[in-house]
């Protein structure tokens, strides 16, 4: 209760974004820019104007993301250091994979991806361990393993990129060109989006569930690599030789990753709801996040996925106009992308305009994953068309 007249004092943090940055932010930014300039200086003769644009935009995006989410600074630094270390061990010869200890067991693309796979699976177990035991240490281990697995996945892709050039300068290309490579991309992007929500909502109880789908992806990856012998680097068919691949594919996988995450959150929502109805004092009811929060994460994730999926489909259409002679050919992949898009458009419409919430939306989000999965894998397996780059 205020008793006497007083002067009101409002203290606002008037520092601009730049002023709020710490020393480490500046150091990281300087390294990022130095790296970008180095790459530009070294390779600009080999890049076309679009690739230069992509390089610069990537650096700028990373800069903004790193400033607003500092954990990314550590992640990118780690990826850069490990990748550069691995590259230095090659000495320009692919055969070093068999000779060099570090390459053979740690950082050749195959080994790094094996580490990624193992760590994601272990992290899944750790997350569930934490959920049931609530031992803080276990939780921290789970998060750390997810971070390291993600870093190893990126390192694997980086090194693979380099390895492709060691096979032949005309063979070299960014490793997002076949099903094996995009499954790695899917795993690390899904994990990154999850880690973002983990920090933002300060909860680990979603972790095990989200990592389940990543583990499933890893399982597929391993089967595909060993049973189908699909881990080898293949040269690009002419239609894929384009800068569009560098933006179309990653944008798509932000979409797929976010949709997959939303579906797993949907599963958690349904579990929590069920637990609250049937066993309100059980582990599930007490330890899983609040329904409101789950609902919000689900929405955010679908919104993110939808935005990037829209972008990816548009980029795909623009690319198609250049490679296949028309921005839209009703090719099965295109058509299924449209179906996925319409599905989530309807989901968002219902939530935003009709205010639908809760169980039906959670179910819908889970079903959405199957639609997405069909667009992602089913089309390659069952339908033929122009877009047959990842055949099973």
């Amino acid at each position, binding site marked *: *209760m*205020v008793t*006497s*007249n*007083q*002067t*009101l*004092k*409002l*203290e*606002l943090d*008037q520092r601009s974004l730049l002023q709020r940055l710490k020393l480490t932010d500046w150091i990281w930014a300087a390294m990022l820019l130095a790296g970008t300039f180095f790459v530009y200086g070294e390779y600009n003769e080999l890049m076309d104007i679009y690739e230069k644009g992509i390089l610069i935009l990537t650096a700028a995006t990373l800069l903004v993301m790193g400033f607003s989410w500092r954990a990314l600074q550590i992640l990118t630094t780690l990826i850069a250091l490990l990748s550069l270390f691995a590259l230095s061990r090659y000495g320009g010869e692919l055969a070093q994979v068999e000779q060099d200890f570090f390459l053979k067991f740690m950082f050749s693309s195959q080994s790094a991806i094996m580490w990624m796979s193992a760590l994601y699976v272990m992290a899944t177990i750790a997350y569930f361990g934490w959920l049931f035991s609530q031992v803080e240490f276990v939780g921290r281990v789970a998060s750390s393993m997810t971070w390291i697995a993600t870093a190893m996945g990126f390192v694997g892709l980086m090194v693979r990129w380099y390895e492709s050039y060691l096979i*032949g300068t*005309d*063979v070299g290309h960014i490793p997002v060109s076949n099903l094996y490579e995009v499954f790695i991309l899917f795993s690390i992007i899904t994990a990154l989006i999850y880690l973002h929500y983990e920090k933002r909502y300060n909860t680990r109880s979603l972790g095990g569930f989200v990592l389940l789908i990543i583990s499933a992806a890893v399982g597929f990856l391993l089967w595909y690599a060993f049973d189908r012998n699909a881990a*080898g680097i*293949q*040269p690009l*068919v*002419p*239609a894929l*030789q*384009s800068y569009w691949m560098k933006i179309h594919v990653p944008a798509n996988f932000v979409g797929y990753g976010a949709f997959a995450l939303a579906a797993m959150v949907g599963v958690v929502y349904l579990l929590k709801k069920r637990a609250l109805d049937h066993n309100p004092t059980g582990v599930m009811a007490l330890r899983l996040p609040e329904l*409101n*929060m789950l609902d*919000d994460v689900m*929405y*955010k994730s679908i*919104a*993110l996925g*939808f*935005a990037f999926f*829209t*972008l990816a489909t*548009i980029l795909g*259409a*623009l690319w198609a*106009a*250049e*490679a*296949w*002679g*028309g*921005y*839209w050919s*009703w090719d*099965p992949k295109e*058509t*299924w992308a*449209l*179906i996925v898009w*319409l*599905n989530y*458009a*309807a989901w968002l419409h219902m939530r*935003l*305009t009709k205010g639908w919430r809760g169980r039906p939306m959670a179910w819908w989000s889970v079903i959405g994953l199957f639609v997405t999965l069909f667009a992602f894998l089913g*089309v390659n397996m069952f*339908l*033929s068309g122009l877009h047959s780059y990842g055949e099973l």
Partner: protein
Amino acid sequence: MNLAITLLVAISFASIIGTVLQQNQPYSDYLLKFGPFWFEVFKALGLFQVYSAIWFLIILGFLVLSTSVCIYRNMPRMFREMQDFRLEVKEKSLRNHKHHNEWEVAAPIEECLSVSQELLAHHGFRLREKAGDNYQLLSAIKGAGSRWGYLLTHIAIVLICIGGLMDGNVLLKIAESLGEIKVEKRNILANEVPDISRLASSNLSYRGNVSIPEGGGANVVFLGYKDGYLVQQLPFTIEVEDFRIEHYESGQPKSFESDLVIVDDELEAPLRETISVNHPLTYKGVSIYQASFGDGGSKIELKGWSLAGAQKEPVAIKGIINQSQKIQTSIGEMDLELNDFRLFNIQPSPEEGRKFHNIGSSIQFKLRAATGEAKEYLNYMSPISTDGRLYFMSGVRSSPAEPFQYLYLPADSSASIHRFMTFYNRLKDSKGLHQLALKAASATTDSGAVPEGGQEEIANMMSMLVRIYVQGGMDAVIGAIESRIPEEKREEIAGIYVKILRHLLGTVYLDLLKEEGQSIEKGMSEFDSQFFEDAGAAIGAIERYGSPFYFQLVNYEHIQATGLQLTRSPGKNLVYPGCFMLALGVFLMFYMPQRRLWVWLRKKDGSVQVILSGNAVRNEMDFANEYQEIHEKLDEVFSPHT
């Protein structure tokens, strides 16, 4: 709105049908697949071209209409709302919002107001003030993205649909239903196509294909339409100087390139440009893409080794791919239709490590009998290594739906077909065969391997068996046994027959080896004995091969054709801006949601009563956090805990 959702669901289902049922295939394939009844049903429903079926276009039209109406009705309200600061709110309704707090502050009202202004402005809100009769109202708004997002995305959908419809074949359909155009179904030359199946170069949009041989040119493209095609006139002529395929070291294709020359009266000099996949050329609004490639009429030379009558020397045949010619065979005149020549055949490699390898040139052709029946053949030029041995391979099939069945003719030590053909001709030469049979018979009667009898008789039987085998394979031999020998003795006799057959084949073969100058005293080399087995097997399979000739490709002059796709799509000019608006709109909608806050102040008994209240339509949780922050800050100011 609900209508729109229904339409979207309808489009989804139609799309699913369109992906499950392969679109735009030849009608004969559908007929084969679904049978006459369902074929007619599906055809009537337009399921073979779902995306240009009338009903599908009507749904799209409705979508455009309903979205437009939606925009028209909502736009004015949305613009109003973006500007509307809701200054007329009542104290009571502020208290009804989910987020609201109150303070009593012992400070001048102006100061309270200015603090609030400063704080809200700091949070990025736009502000309006209103002085009521006994109160002051500060109204704040942030993020118009959701409304702009709505407008942009919905306008985008209309633009994209209209652009897409422009580039689709709606106009063609209308012209067809008015009887202005007619689909051409015959396989005739472009300049023979009647005018009613031709489209003028002024046609607004099209997407067609044309195959042009190196050194050739074209000023039309073919638009696949229903079960036929239309001929689209181009506003210029394209000439192809060269077509190139480059390969990676591993043999996979690396690039397809065509050197084009655009000839147009409006050009001062012909325009020369090289196009490749991902790098089209656009001229006069028409984009020219590298789409495929094929044979442009390669000149080839064949050797026809007779497989029917006795003929020692092969006949020489010259031909051009995509043309057909009459040839004389032992079973009458036949048409030799040369369909395709391939310079390279890249195949999965049996060796470890290398995934692909090149197995050389090949030719594909049909042999059509006078009855119209045809078999299709695929012959490789060079012998191909299988299990470490070389064979001349020739595939045969009766219909394109079947896989090729291969005949393996063994290559001799100099990788040529000569030894096999000589051996085969010897077996067909009845005189020579009989002499050798006599020789063999005397040898066998000495050793007692066959029952007693005159050598002449045994020799006759031997050569008869070989003749049956050469003409009809092992099936014919079995047939002969079945027709002559009583059932209980068949097994025994069959064993003897096979021995006899092998014996005479072997005798002929040894004779041949001797003639080649090989010493066979120490037995045959492994190569030669395996050759004998392979040759025997091949001869037994010739009947099933069913051709009077084995055509050996001996020489070629490769002339390629480039497959170009030409599109004119003015709808792009709507679709691309539409795409941009869509992407922008979606991001605005999700990441700049609208939020409202009010600060309501009234003097009351020497202090000031302050109400903070707010709401957001979307992203409530984020808003709750921001509200919380603002509330805490105000709380620090208005009720300091000192």
